[in-house]
């Protein structure tokens, strides 16, 4: 008995439902969530009409506050109020301490797993980010009246593997299904490109609170091709503030270390002054150093410009390098799009204009453009726009390689390679009878391992003893569409294999994440079970839907026995999904996947030849 219902050819038997999807801009200073509503992207606001959520989490005794409510505690309770957590995510403790020496937090945990001690216990930067993400998720679910099927989260293009992985882990903790990690400048280009309908080469200059990205893209017939990207994952408006703070400390003749609360006060004054100087020539700064000691100072725009000019120059240097990587001259740039709050600073605007010799575009709100682009991409990825002709081709921001003899780096995937990508390279043993090989995966542009970011180490064991140079060890690097790396190694003659999901040393382990999820739930065991069951059921329904649609469209690629096999597997999956037996569902899923593997491959190959056949017809 056939299971399939009759439907129009090419259409799914399951009626198309609009899936709720959203884009999240998880920023250093502010975060936003946006969604596509009746065709256009909109940011979602809280009850008081605010769409911008300050990226601040405050751990107070009675509850954990996020956003504006947390902001109120920044000066009064700096140790328990975490700001700019994005600058800490995916970094080692010594890295954090050397980059940001005057943070008010009590750090604990070990070198590779830094934590902040708060009155609610120790928290990892990933958990802090998860608080922000989960706050935004609930805001969206309230506004849209349903659960989100998936979310696109933006990250700086320059984020390395550890920072990306940690962001994804934060989403997992927040119970969010991540459709894709999208690079912020690419998201901005999508929002801008679709809004203006313009084509050509554009530069996206994205200077946020904590990060700087420059991306060069070619826009052509719905294709957003990133030609090159560069930047600095620790350069942003916060650094402008730090420079101002240091200047003020000097002017006020203060001696460090200062109290955490005074540091916060200085930070706030600096940030306020910077913002005021965007539209005024001078601003008054007032500090209460202690109860009877007040200090005031007048800061001019000229002084500000002098202070931040080295930082702005650093961004321009990154622009030059990216143009070179893209093989694009300044004259070829049609438009420069400004993104991020820090592009409001007049010096930034004027220097960028001078550098690119064109007036930068600020038509879309630089604070919202990234979230809007992410929402558009989320809508497409969720499958709400099957007719969409948009394609994003993004790249790896940093070169990926392996350590070789003498502490040198052998690049396997150079920076600015279009993703997804898989590259293999062969290595050999250097000692007679060597039976194991240590692999050290690094990321960065420098020749020496010590100057690059160490991502992971793993070992390939059980290589048969041979003379030096006789073994052929094939190491494969794969970077997926989220920009995440996995590495595997294989000795060719024996087929002995070893692989690693590059879970960077600085992130969380899988078991830590599931422990945290457990801890965050009251009836831990039951809830985890329920969550897993639901995840399996969702995956099962995705599989059922897509296989049924595939059979209707392409059963001609199969012989009758193969069709029958698949139909039976689907039939039993449909049946088992209605139970709550997680293992049985998993089994049935595996049977369907195994029975459809060849079918899926044939369909993909047939769609490839059809795509180009269509193109050939177009040419005639």
């Amino acid at each position, binding site marked *: 008995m056939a299971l399939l219902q009759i439907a129009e050819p090419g259409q799914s038997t399951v009626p198309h439902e609009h899936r709720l999807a959203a884009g999240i801009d998880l920023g250093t200073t502010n975060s936003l969530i946006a969604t596509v509503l009746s065709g256009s992207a909109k940011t979602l606001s809280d009850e008081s009409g605010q769409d911008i959520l300050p990226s601040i989490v405050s751990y107070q005794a009675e509850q954990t506050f996020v956003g504006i409510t947390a902001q109120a505690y920044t000066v009064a309770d700096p140790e328990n109020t975490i700001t700019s957590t994005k600058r800490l995510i995916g970094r080692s403790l010594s890295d954090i301490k050397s980059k940001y020496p005057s943070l008010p937090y009590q750090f604990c945990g070990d070198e590779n797993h830094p934590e902040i001690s708060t009155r609610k216990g120790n928290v990892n930067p990933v958990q802090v980010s998860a608080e922000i993400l989960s706050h935004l998720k609930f805001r969206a679910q309230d506004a849209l009246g349903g659960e989100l099927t998936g979310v696109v989260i933006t990250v700086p293009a320059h984020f390395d593997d550890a920072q990306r992985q940690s962001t994804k882990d934060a989403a997992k903790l927040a119970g969010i299904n991540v459709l894709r990690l999208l690079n912020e400048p690419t998201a901005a280009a999508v929002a801008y490109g679709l809004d203006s309908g313009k084509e050509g080469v554009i530069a996206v200059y994205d200077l946020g609170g904590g990060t700087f990205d420059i991306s060069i893209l070619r826009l052509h017939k719905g294709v957003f091709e990133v030609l090159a990207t560069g930047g600095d994952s620790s350069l942003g408006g916060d650094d402008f503030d730090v420079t101002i703070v240091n200047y003020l400390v000097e002017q006020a003749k203060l001696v460090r270390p200062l109290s955490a609360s005074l540091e916060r006060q200085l930070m706030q004054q600096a940030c306020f002054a910077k913002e005021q100087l965007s539209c005024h020539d001078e601003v008054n700064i007032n500090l209460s150093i202690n109860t009877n000691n007040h200090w005031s100072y007048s800061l001019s725009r000229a002084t500000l410009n002098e202070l931040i000019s080295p930082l702005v120059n650093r961004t321009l240097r990154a622009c030059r390098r990216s143009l070179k990587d893209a093989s694009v001259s300044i004259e070829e740039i049609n438009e420069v799009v400004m993104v991020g709050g820090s592009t409001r600073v007049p010096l930034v605007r004027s220097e960028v204009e001078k550098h690119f010799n064109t007036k930068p575009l600020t038509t879309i709100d630089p604070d919202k453009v990234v979230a809007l682009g992410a929402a558009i991409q989320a809508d497409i*990825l969720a499958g709400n726009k099957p007719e969409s002709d948009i394609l994003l081709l993004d790249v790896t921001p940093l070169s990926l390689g392996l350590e070789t003899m003498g502490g040198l780096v052998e690049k396997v995937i150079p920076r600015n390679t279009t993703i997804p990508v898989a590259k293999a390279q062969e290595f050999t043993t250097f000692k007679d009878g060597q039976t194991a090989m240590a692999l050290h995966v690094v990321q960065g542009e420098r020749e020496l391992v010590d100057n690059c970011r160490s991502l992971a180490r793993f070992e390939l064991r059980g290589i048969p003893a041979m003379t030096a140079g006789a073994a052929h060890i094939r190491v494969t690097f794969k970077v*997926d569409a989220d920009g995440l790396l996995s590495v595997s190694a294989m000795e060719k003659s024996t087929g002995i294999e070893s692989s690693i999901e590059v879970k960077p040393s600085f992130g969380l382990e899988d078991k830590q994440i599931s422990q945290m999820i457990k801890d965050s739930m009251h009836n831990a065991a039951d809830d985890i079970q329920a969550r897993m069951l639901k995840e399996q059921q969702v995956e099962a329904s995705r599989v059922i839907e897509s296989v049924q649609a595939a059979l209707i469209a392409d059963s001609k690629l199969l012989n009758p026995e193969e069709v029958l096999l698949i139909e039976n597997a689907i039939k039993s999956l449909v049946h088992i999904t209605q139970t709550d037996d997680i293992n049985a569902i998993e089994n049935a899923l595996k049977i369907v996947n195994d029975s459809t593997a060849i079918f899926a491959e044939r369909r*993909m190959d047939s769609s*490839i030849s059809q795509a*180009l056949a269509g193109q050939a017809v177009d040419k005639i």
Partner: protein
Amino acid sequence: MNYFQLFNIAPSFDIDLSELSSSYQTLQKTVHPDNFAHTSEQQQRLAVQKSAQVNDAYQTLKNPLKRAEYMLIERGVDMPNEQQSFSDTGFLMHQLELREMLEDIQLSSNPEAALEDVQAILDNESLALSQIMQTQITENNRASNSAACDNLRKLKFYQKLNIDVERLEESLFED
């Protein structure tokens, strides 16, 4: 299916890059993982794999040196590996000269101009070499393929020099 068949273009060294790019985009619109984000995990994995293959094929055909190497290997030419010794001593001597020129840039009174001079020499010489190689590949007989292979190896020397020029440039003009 070889890369030329994949992109539905004639297997020649002299390819139309805009045609290649448009075929590439059409293929990616079909196989890119973004099209499969809402489907089963199996489909998503397959899409990542196919999309990576298309990317690899595109990068190979787009870049003249990689394209040459790919075509020669497809023709069954025995490609010597990079460590294998190189018999053209005249060429090697000249490479040493070029390396010395590169090292002298740092000592020059006007490094920027010196760098540009070296770059121009490298560009001219590698252009001449690649034109000869192109003719040899197009000729496609045993002798010409083997000669093309030698020239490809020479061009790789220039490619390495260019990487060093870039490094030098970055170190000279940083800050």
